[in-house]
């Protein structure tokens, strides 16, 4: 069986065709313009993962929100749980880009990292 999917590893969006054997085993991956396509397709059929980007509430900051992302892709099936967890978080300004907001978020092995700098309100 051949399954089509679009690689989302980068904005080019290669259209991959994945040949699956009996019991779902991947036999062949085609259409990728770089090796990430192979990883992506392999993951999609075993444990699909996504980078999550989301805002976290900041106290005493010059902005009310700091943008964050997971530093590694997290399992898609845990996405909702992680989103709800992050919505309840509060951090204090100042926050610097690269600061780890949550380490190993919900045991995924991925850290939640600030993607911008939010200074303290004067």
């Amino acid at each position: 069986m051949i399954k089509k999917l679009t690689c989302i590893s980068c904005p080019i969006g290669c259209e991959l065709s994945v040949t699956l054997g009996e019991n779902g085993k991947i036999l062949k991956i085609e259409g990728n313009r770089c090796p990430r396509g192979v990883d992506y397709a392999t993951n999609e059929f075993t444990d699909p993962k996504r980078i999550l980007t989301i805002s976290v509430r900041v106290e005493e900051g010059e902005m009310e929100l700091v943008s964050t992302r997971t530093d590694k892709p997290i399992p898609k099936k845990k996405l909702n749980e992680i989103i709800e967890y992050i919505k309840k978080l509060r951090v204090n300004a100042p926050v610097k880009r690269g600061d780890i907001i949550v380490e190993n978020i919900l045991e995924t092995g991925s850290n939640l990292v600030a993607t911008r700098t939010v200074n303290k309100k004067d």
Partner: protein
Amino acid sequence: MRIEKVDVLIIGGGAAGLAAAIEAKNTGVKTLLLERDRNTGGVLNQCIHNGFGLHVFKEELTGPEFMERLWEELGNLDEIIRNNYTVLKIDHINREVITLSEEGIVVFKPKALIMATGARERPLNALRIPGSRVAGVYTAGVAQKMVNIYNRLPGNRVLIVGSGDIGLIMARRLKIEGMDVLGVVEIMPEPGGLIRNVVQCLEDFNIPLWLSHTVFKIHGKERLEGVTIGKVDENFNPIPGTERYIEVDTLVASVGLIPQNELIENFVEMDPINRGPVIDDLMRTSIEWIFAAGNNVAIHDLVDFVYEEGKIAGRNAAKYVLGEKLPKPKYIFKRGNNVGVLLPQRFTGKEPFKMYLRPKKSLEKSAILFSGKVVRKFNWKIRPSEMIDLVVRNFESLPNEVLVEVNKID
């Protein structure tokens, strides 16, 4: 009125303007960047999603990360950047840029000027959709700023109109933030944004995408109450009998970006298809001391390309200021079959450069031809929504007028 002399003046502090400033500053010429908003970064400020920087930084960044890296590259921001400066007028005869700020009217006299004014969103109002004029209709960029910067939600139940990238990104964002996202309607038979965004923004979150659909009518008294949507035929006319009422209090429109060239369009040569100035491979406009880069030249898909253009403009503007004799364009690109947006429109042929183009129609297998000669083949589908970039070299064989075509192949 104060007069200020400067070598390279940059108008606009988004990715293109910041990149131009970095490059110009590094040559040692006096560089100044005018930003009309409170801070630079432009739309990167509010684009908290990832997907930026793969070409430039070889890693995937979010908008704010990309922006802060440019700030760091630029170094002493206060020396170069003037925030809250609005350009009122460019007097190209006297080479003056007239600005308004809290300082009053400041007239800049630059030796070279770089336009990096970016784009604005087409408002839904401009589409002449029948119905009421109600609150609750936003462009995707406004909704994005509201949610990511202002910490406010635009409503409870939303329909996204138009499947441009920001529309898709906002569908996901609003869903994550707890709104009911009923779907995305797209008048064209294909999505307007990257397929990657269709997958990770819509499919991942079970948001339906209705292609060849549009909003027929807007309902409501004061705040939006609902919309009638339906299918359109190949000429975009509504097909009777396909109407469906959807109860929403919010409409988020991603119906196109318009390059902003009001300051120069009356005196530089413009390209009506790109809706931007005609430029060469050095990012020069038809006026030798005015350069341009970014989404005001043509709408790009990737900030990386905008950044690269900004750097080229910055470098060449600085060379111009330093008195280096820049080569004149020798070749022109002429649009042939299936070519929409295309830039640059002319080139010097001195050094390899990147050209960008969009096909007018999608093709499964295709090739780009320069005056009949295949220069690149695609064995994957190309679409108007995905800009093609192509490095041009080997100028010897090219005629002075290069006919560019994107043709179907077997």
